[in-house]
């Protein structure tokens, strides 16, 4: 059984605002039958087209998807559009007293539908969403490159969710967005995105040193491997071992789930990118079998 809070239970068993608004000002639709959950959100504004006076929803999905939709409609009422846009998926989860991490993607779906509705109302371009056959997300900023082909999720969207929710593992990203949850082929790419997002945050306080002695370089490499890289691999059941450092040449061996994994090449590149970011630009990571 899922460990749902009493608030989630209540919103699932007694959902607020189910239905449609025939003369809605804004409608946002995300998800699809094939994906296993979908939400259609209707918003009605007041005479001045300023405040949200009514919101209704229709949801296909599990208990937490229904509860998140219900919570969202309660949260947006009385807010103006900018205030509504400021609602994050975490706010939806908080309203419900928390969601199991595996179910966080339900709160993301709610936030997304809200954003789609408001963007469409404001005349921003949104790709048409075919509810039956298209796995694709209707996320407004659809520009990015599709990372998860199974669920049609782009890097732009993933980076946004990683940043907003401060996610550090691929497993968390799957729980929040579903990306990587089917065939798993995009998990190395998700790890790279995490590294990019975390890296860009970390760069301010943790600057790459200008000049390093060999001794200092070796120390720093070990530190970054321990602190920044191995935890990422552990989260996916993998690990690595530092075999040797020769100048800027770093030899590592992948262990556990990473050992013999077809995508360990990508993982090695992720490790290299991270070390180049945080230690020295000329670092070369070599995978050895030992």
């Amino acid at each position, binding site marked *: 059984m899922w460990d749902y809070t009493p608030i989630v239970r209540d919103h699932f068993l007694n959902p607020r605002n189910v239905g449609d608004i025939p003369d809605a000002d804004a409608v946002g639709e995300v998800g699809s039958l094939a994906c296993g959950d979908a939400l259609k959100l209707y918003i009605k504004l007041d005479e001045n087209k300023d405040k949200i006076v009514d919101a209704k929803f229709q949801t296909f999905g*599990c*208990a937490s998807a229904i509860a998140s939709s219900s919570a969202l409609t309660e949260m947006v009422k009385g807010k103006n559009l900018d205030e509504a846009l400021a609602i994050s998926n975490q706010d939806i989860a908080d309203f419900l007293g928390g969601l199991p991490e595996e179910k966080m993607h339900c709160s993301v779906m709610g936030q997304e539908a809200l954003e789609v509705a408001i963007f469409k109302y404001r005349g921003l371009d949104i790709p048409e969403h075919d509810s039956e056959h298209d796995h694709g997300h209707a996320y407004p900023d659809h520009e990015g490159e599709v990372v998860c082909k199974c669920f049609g999720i782009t890097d732009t969207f993933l980076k946004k969710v990683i940043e907003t929710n401060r996610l550090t593992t691929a497993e968390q990203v799957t729980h929040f967005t579903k990306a990587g949850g*089917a065939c798993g082929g995009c998990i190395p790419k998700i790890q790279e995105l995490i590294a990019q997002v975390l890296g860009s945050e970390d760069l301010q306080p943790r600057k790459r040193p200008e000049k390093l002695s060999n001794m200092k370089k070796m120390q720093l490499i070990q530190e970054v491997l321990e602190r920044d890289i191995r935890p990422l691999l552990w989260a996916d059941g993998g690990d690595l071992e530092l075999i040797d450092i020769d100048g800027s040449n770093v030899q590592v061996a992948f262990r556990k789930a990473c050992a013999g994994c077809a995508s360990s090449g990508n993982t090695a590149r992720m490790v290299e990118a991270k070390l180049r970011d945080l230690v020295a630009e000329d670092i070369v990571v070599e995978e050895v079998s030992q």
Partner: protein
Amino acid sequence: MKEIYLDNNATTKVDEAVFEEMRPYFCELYGNPSSMHFFGGQVQGKTAEARSRVAALLGASPEEIIFTACGTESDNAAIRSALEVFPERRHIITSRVEHPAVLTQCRNLSQKGYRVTEIGVDGAGRLDMDELKAAVDSDTAIVSLMWANNETGVIFPVEEAAAIAKAKGALFHSDAVQAIGKIPINMAASSIDMLSLSGHKLHAPKGIGVLYLRRGTPFRPFMVGGHQEKSRRAGTENAAAIIALGKACELAGQHMHAENTVVKAQRDRLQDALMAAIPNARINGGGAERLPNTTSIAFEYVEGEAILLLLSEMGICASSGSACTSGSLEPSHVLRAMGVPFTCAHGSIRFSLSRYTTDAEIDTVIREMPPIIARLRQMSPFGREHLKGK
């Protein structure tokens, strides 16, 4: 709230007579059946009786019964043994709809250099026998196919499949945990080499299983370090559970007729009534031969976890092949292998009955289920559009 338990393919109630049979073997008759003294000896007498009772249900000889900890252990032991006794054979055949106890192991072995063929099924869940015939060759060490599917209840023609495997010199194993106790099995008239049984699926406790090993079949033990089970499975015997399983098998034999008449009639009445009352539904594997106690029904435009939790509010316990209940994000591998349409793959519910199921319980489910589906469809953006005018 009194539960209506229709999830017997997940686990079953321990029969009270089974519990009474095992009860003395904890605090009073706790001796080790391997001991030389009288105190262990009287336990040994009871475990020997249990072995005979299990063998009788399977139409086997007592020495062909190896007690294990669970069905999963039996599956693991069977497949690993076959690979060890035929080191020159590097090919394993299984099906796409196996239980993870078999499928995960095969997929792990494929990473270690073994060739693994997963035979497909048709829309009704029936095994593709032509694909099987074409796949078996002189490199095949073992063919492992389930007797009956846990999600749909679809029965595979395992005897026919075993003959195909044996013709090429491969061993044949069947994961029969869902079949044993529900349909008659007679190993005396079979060519199957190995068979897995799980106690808790037939009203014995959890933590006890059996690997049936046909006399003369080459075998390498999975667990080593003791002479128990004629050195085929080391580790102190779980005597109380073994004794319980013996009783459970005896009772299963006595209830076999009722399982295939009374329970089957209840199952049929349940699925017929639900299909009549609820539009846009289909029975997964409905066109195939199935276990008498199982029905899996797919409801379009609704999601399984939501159905299960609303049923649970009514005290009704069922299961689903839905992604959302398992924490994964795709519908079950069984439903996907069957090509269940995406409109209902997420909304499948499995009801699995037992000899404890009552007519009144079936009536309750028939009454409660249609409004639950209607309520969720009313909430669904797809249900409304697609069901309009139907």
